[in-house]
């Protein structure tokens, strides 16, 4: 049989033995997931350092000689692009998608393991190409993460020569990597679910990852198309996006192109991208909340519908990023309406999370703290989204710190909170050890409170009209003297939050060797990934026989049950059987 995972071949369960087969040429989804995760965290740390440098400049202008305006713009650009694409997308889908999908649906591996392996190596290549741009003449591009033409490829923008080319090339490679991975995720979810695992019995984590992957597969082509066309504008002198213009006193050969066309393409990718990041986070946080509140998720069906609904709607809201591009007011009205409609399924999800907690047996473990923290940060970020979704309010606030604060709360901090929750939640499964609880709580409080110390004042700066992407504010009448001191305080908070991530890294790496052995299913979770014969799961995940699924993933605190949770693969008891028949009879 071709194209069947090694792990699916019935005769033997052979674990790869040598270093090369185990780590380099590995087709095991768990190894690939960890490779993805480590690469993403590494490149994310680079982006974190960049944000620290930006904050130093903003908080204490005229202090640091080694940051000039070009550097600053390059930091902004690389920070944004790395965080959104190379960290969040890669870690949520490449990392958690890879690790969780086969385990949670009861498969031995992804359906196309070879392609999965290629996906990681392409991803690594894209990261290397991206990082290479730091070392080329002119440095990385400083065009802003949106890479708007014409400025992105014109002299005057830092990195307009090599930087932008490497950025576009890296994006194209990333998209190829994501597509190979994404095809695997959707096919595996659709085809490799074990016996009894109906779609509506899947944990919400899988629903989130699945829907986000479908979004990614359909949205990344827009970025691909725009990257290819911009690359041609840059290298071959075509005029897809470039209008006729004079640059530095010189008439350029471009003519007639449309920069707004690029914006449409970019945001047709860019808005679904928000949900590519958010939906897996929604899914994972639902599972963490249910498990640590010992309660079934409130409104499972609504949660699934909301995920699918948000995914569908996310393709119809892109132009709300372009209200200031001079669009027809009717067009703006349409996109404001769709944008506000998306608040409905999102609000359903938030209410359901809160109702899951209501009268639950809440265990304030570290993952639970991060999950609850997410509800706060996401609600705050979502509410400012309602402001910015309206054209009339967006116009004055556009390109101010208010926007920066909004999107950091909603798609920076919130997914990161869930990622921390997820890493702490699944750490015992992945490593077989417990992390240090006290360090974890310290990490949570520093991160959570620090986040508010950074972003709450930033909303206020935005209301004052402080523009984003400026190297220094200079002297302006409408910005009071208090603003720079607020900026300094934000910088100090940001540095503290940045440094406190070292606690997390220390905890993760120290606990691999020195943590308490976690044992089997330490949180008492119902979903399948905790029911593997070995912890951490071995190659092939399930031993000789695949698990059978008898129930949904949220049987917590079932009245009359022996324990306060019933795993999905726990056979149906006689009492349940008769209760079921009784109910059938009545209905």
């Amino acid at each position, binding site marked *: 049989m071709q194209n069947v995972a090694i792990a699916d071949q019935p005769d033997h369960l052979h674990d790869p033995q040598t270093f090369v087969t185990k780590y380099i040429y590995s087709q095991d989804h768990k190894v690939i997931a960890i490779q993805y995760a480590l690469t993403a965290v590494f490149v994310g740390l680079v982006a974190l350092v960049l944000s620290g440098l930006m904050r130093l400049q903003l908080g204490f202008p005229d202090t640091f000689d080694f940051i000039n305006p070009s550097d600053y713009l390059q930091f902004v650009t690389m920070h944004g692009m790395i965080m959104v694409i190379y960290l969040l997308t890669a870690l949520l889908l490449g990392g958690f998608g890879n690790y969780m999908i086969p385990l949670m649906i009861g498969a031995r591996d992804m359906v*196309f393991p070879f392609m999965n392996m290629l996906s990681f190596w392409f991803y690594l290549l894209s990261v290397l190409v991206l990082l290479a741009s730091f070392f080329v003449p002119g440095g990385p591009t400083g065009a802003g993460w949106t890479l708007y033409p014409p400025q992105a490829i014109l002299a005057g923008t830092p990195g307009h020569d090599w930087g932008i080319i490497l950025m576009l090339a890296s994006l194209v490679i990333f998209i190829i990597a994501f597509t190979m991975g994404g095809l695997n995720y*959707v096919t595996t979810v659709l085809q490799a679910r074990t016996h009894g695992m109906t779609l509506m019995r899947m944990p919400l984590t899988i629903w989130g990852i699945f829907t986000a992957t479908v979004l990614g597969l359909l949205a990344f082509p827009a970025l691909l198309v725009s990257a290819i066309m911009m690359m041609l504008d840059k290298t071959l002198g075509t005029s897809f996006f470039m209008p006729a213009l004079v640059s530095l006193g010189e008439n350029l050969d471009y003519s007639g192109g449309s920069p707004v066309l690029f914006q449409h393409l970019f945001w047709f990718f860019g808005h679904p991208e928000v949900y590519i990041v958010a939906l897996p986070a929604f899914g994972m946080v639902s599972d963490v909340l249910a498990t640590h509140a010992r309660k079934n998720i409130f409104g499972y069906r609504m949660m699934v519908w909301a995920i699918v609904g948000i995914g569908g709607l996310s393709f119809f809201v892109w132009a709300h990023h372009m209200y200031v591009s001079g669009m027809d007011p009717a067009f703006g009205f349409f996109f404001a309406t769709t944008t506000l409609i998306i608040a409905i399924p999102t609000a359903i999800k938030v209410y359901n999370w809160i109702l899951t907690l209501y009268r639950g047996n809440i265990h304030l473990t570290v993952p639970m703290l991060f999950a609850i923290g997410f509800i706060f940060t996401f609600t705050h970020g979502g509410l400012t989204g309602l402001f910015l979704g309206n054209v009339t309010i967006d116009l004055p606030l556009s390109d101010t710190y208010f926007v920066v604060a909004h999107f950091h709360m909603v798609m920076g901090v919130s997914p990161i909170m869930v990622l921390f929750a997820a890493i702490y939640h699944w750490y015992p499964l992945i490593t077989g050890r417990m992390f240090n609880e006290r360090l974890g709580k310290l990490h949570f409080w520093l991160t959570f409170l620090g986040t508010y110390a950074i972003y709450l004042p930033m909303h206020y700066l935005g209301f004052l009209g402080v523009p984003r992407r400026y190297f220094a504010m200079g002297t302006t009448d409408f910005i009071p003297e208090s603003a720079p001191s607020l900026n300094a305080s934000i910088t100090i908070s940001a540095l503290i939050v940045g440094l406190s991530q070292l606690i997390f890294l220390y905890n993760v790496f120290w606990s691999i060797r020195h943590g308490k052995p976690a044992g089997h299913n330490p949180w008492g979770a119902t979903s399948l990934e905790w029911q593997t014969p070995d912890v951490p799961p071995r190659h092939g995940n399930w031993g000789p026989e695949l698990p059978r699924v008898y129930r949904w993933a949220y049987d917590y605190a079932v009245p009359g049950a022996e324990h306060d949770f019933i795993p999905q693969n726990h056979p149906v008891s006689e009492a349940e059987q008769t209760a079921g028949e009784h109910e059938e009879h009545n209905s």
Partner: protein
Amino acid sequence: MNIMRMLRDKPWLHPSAAATAAQYSGPDSKAAMRVLLRFVLAIVGVIFFLFIITFLARSQYPDFEALAGQPWQPFTDPTRLWFNTALLACASLTIQWGLGGARTGNLNVSVAGISAAVFFTVLFLVAQFDLWLHLQSMGFYMAGNPANSYFYLLTAIHGLHLIGGLLVLTNVVFRVWYDNSTESLSAPLQLCTTYWHFLLGVWLVLFALLTSRPETINALAAMCGF
């Protein structure tokens, strides 16, 4: 509808074993490949759809000069394109013929069909490249006009997809060579065949679009609201 029934399911009621009692022993690789192909076609479709949308939007700017309509423009007489189209259509037909051979277990027919399909596909690519040279010699350069740019871009992207298809087809053939049975050929060849037909369809759309006169392009753009 199946999906609607699925979404109305209430999984918290009635825990039970699934209806089929047969032991489930892992995913069906053929079904998985079919799902994979559907997604691949969807993605390729989206890529070309987006290119075409940008083409229509860009066509409404004053510097855009369609490649057909006036006597001096290259595709007012699209004979060469018809010839290329015939080559790709032959590739589609012969790969279908080869698939028929694989289904009935006739190894000779399937080898002949696949070889002919590869031959016609490569010939199509060469003919497209020759067309590029022809356009260059007429002075229609890549950066000369957005219509030219789109012609080179769209044919290049389409060609790259064909080359990708050829690589997959080569892989399939070599696997079968080692397995030495036509049974294992028909399923993957079916997928390749579908892909070839799909790319033929894409090419017909591109052909129609790139040889359209300005009035047609304007009408299409108006329908899309540009």
